[in-house]
């Protein structure tokens, strides 16, 4: 006899469930290590682990190419990152510059392939792995300045925030979601502000604080360790323009 109430109850229940989800879970799942992007086929299978990976402690000369890397700084090759929006791929000249002096691997297939490009004076057509939508203008420069140069954090850690554990990969593969919410989630966090003590006289207040705008002024926010913290800027026109 209450049959006619079934549909309304169902509808109301559904609505409530959706609402509860909306309120509770308005911040979508963001960072997961296993959220791997697709494996991208590259013209040359560049071994990141070999270049950037940790040294093999047992065999410090790294004679076995399958174990241990050279611990080369990311910025040694991706030199544009600290000066430009894009991290870029180094000119082929850079690869050759080292490899012409490493005769031991000269006849390895990848290196042979590399020299083929060099002889033909053709750039290697690397595929983009972290390809953001065209209306997103992420700046590498600012993030490197902020975290590596101002705060002195390790390079691989800083790059790894967004690129994951590249030093363990062969060719790079996307590990983080890199969606807008994911970017924003980091900008909403309270980060430690590295106030360099030695800002020269006449340095502007902005030199001492990591953030642009006083309305988000970090000055009063301190974390448990007593360090100043602040959120990242929250301005659409930083990335979209």
């Amino acid at each position, binding site marked *: 006899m209450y049959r006619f109430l079934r549909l309304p109850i169902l509808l109301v229940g559904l609505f409530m469930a959706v609402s509860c989800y909306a309120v509770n879970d308005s911040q*979508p799942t963001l960072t997961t290590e296993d959220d791997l992007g697709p494996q991208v086929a590259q013209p040359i299978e560049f071994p990141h682990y070999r270049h950037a990976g940790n040294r093999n402690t047992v065999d410090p000369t790294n004679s076995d190419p399958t174990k241990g890397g050279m611990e080369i700084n990311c910025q040694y090759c991706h030199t544009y990152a600290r000066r430009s929006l894009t991290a870029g791929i180094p000119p082929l000249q850079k690869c050759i510059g080292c490899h012409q002096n490493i005769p031991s691997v000269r006849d390895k297939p990848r290196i042979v392939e590399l020299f083929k490009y060099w002889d033909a004076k053709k750039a290697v057509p690397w595929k983009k792995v972290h390809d953001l939508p065209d209306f997103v203008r992420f700046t590498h420069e600012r993030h490197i300045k902020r975290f590596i140069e101002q705060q002195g954090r390790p390079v691989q850690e800083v790059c790894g925030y967004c690129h994951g554990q590249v030093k363990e990969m062969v060719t790079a593969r996307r590990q983080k979601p890199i969606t807008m919410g994911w970017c924003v989630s980091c900008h909403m966090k309270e980060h430690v502000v590295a106030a360099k003590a030695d800002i020269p006289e006449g340095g502007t207040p902005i030199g001492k604080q990591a953030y642009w705008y006083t309305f988000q002024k970090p000055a009063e926010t301190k974390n448990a360790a007593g360090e100043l913290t602040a959120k990242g800027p929250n301005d659409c026109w930083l990335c979209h323009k």
Partner: protein
Amino acid sequence: MKDIREDIAWAKINQDVMKSLENPRKIYWVILFFAVLMFAVGIGCEVYQYQVGMGVANLDNPHVWGLYIATFIFWIGMSHSGTLLSAILHLMHADWRKPIYRFAEAMTTFSLMTAGLFVMVHLGRLWQFYYAVPYPNERWVWPNFQSPLLWDAMAIFTYLSSSVLFLFVGMIPDLAIARDNLQSGWRKKLYTLLALGWEGTDRQWRNFRVTYLTIACFLIPLAVSVHSIVASDFGMSQQPGWHVTSFPPYFVAGALYSGCAAIITLFIILRYVFKFEEYMTLPILKKIVRLTFAIAMVWTYLNCVEFASVWYSHDGVSKDLLIQKMTGPYAPFWWAMIFCGSVVPFVFAIKRFQTHIPVLFATSLLLNLGMWLERWMIVAPTFSHGYYPWTWDHDQWPSMIQWGIVFGSFGWFTLLFMVFCKVFPSVSMYEVKEMVYHRTLHLKKNEIGETAEQGAH
């Protein structure tokens, strides 16, 4: 004359209304055919516009809104009459509403749906409309809750869902009747599903009454708010001609006005097409006509209020605009609006015409035209004569694509409405029975009273 024959049998009511579902007059199919045709034209235009860009509507840079927004307001306005007839008159115990509220309610729902379409059609990037929906998303961005347009979207959506609910709830007993009158077929299945197991028990009736009344009470403020919010799309902006505090009541009055006019039109059509002469009687029509006349006068008054407030304010720009409306390129339309909206309704004041079907039909169409023009006159002239003289526009004439989509919307509405009337009982059987019952009760009372009086002597 009486609103309805008191001697009409309940079985005949069932029979008549159920018959309307089966065999309307041939003209029904003609109307349906043209509705589909018009709708197809509209779809074609929209597809073209989607592909090529909004430019095909011949809108331009200062003049960014056109017929879409005007017609949007028009349809929103249409939706008010249903609420007026079914909810307000229900609360006021106006008995005569009973045979006609169902289709008025359907009209509300469908004109809201049509209005909603215009919001979409109007968007430059229709495919991104979901950005305006507040839901948790991976972008971590909410829509702008300050924007009247967002309030609008929400208000319309709420009103639409409530209207659908109201229409549906009010139909449950009738659906049960329809279910019980059929033996088999898809209709039987449909009615069975929708009747929600209605058996007509006392308890069900009691719950039904409460539910219905509650939704009715809920719907009235909603209806007023919807059009007030549509008005605030304009009133909250600072453009001359829009920035007027009297806009919300003005819009609501206009809405009721156009809604009533539309009811008269549809009344006449339904009465003929579905052979409802017995139920949609001329005395009822007369009542609507009088109501419409009253609202027309309210609208005229509010119109004058708008002009007066522009006039006594020291806002030169608004004054300029008003003069421009009266004398500029839009003058023919503006005067047509005044004529159709304020002069034509005096036909309704003439007793002879209050039940004269051809005259009423023509007049109601004119009123609708006037109300549509009113919306256009709100939207367009401000763009062509705003604050900044350099960007004053030539009279911006809508392209055929824009007209096509507006045209198509009428097809879409007619299509929905006609299909509804064919599938669902468009006259409320149980309420008409109630009405007849009440009338006979009244008679009986009179008889009893008379006898008692006689007996006293």
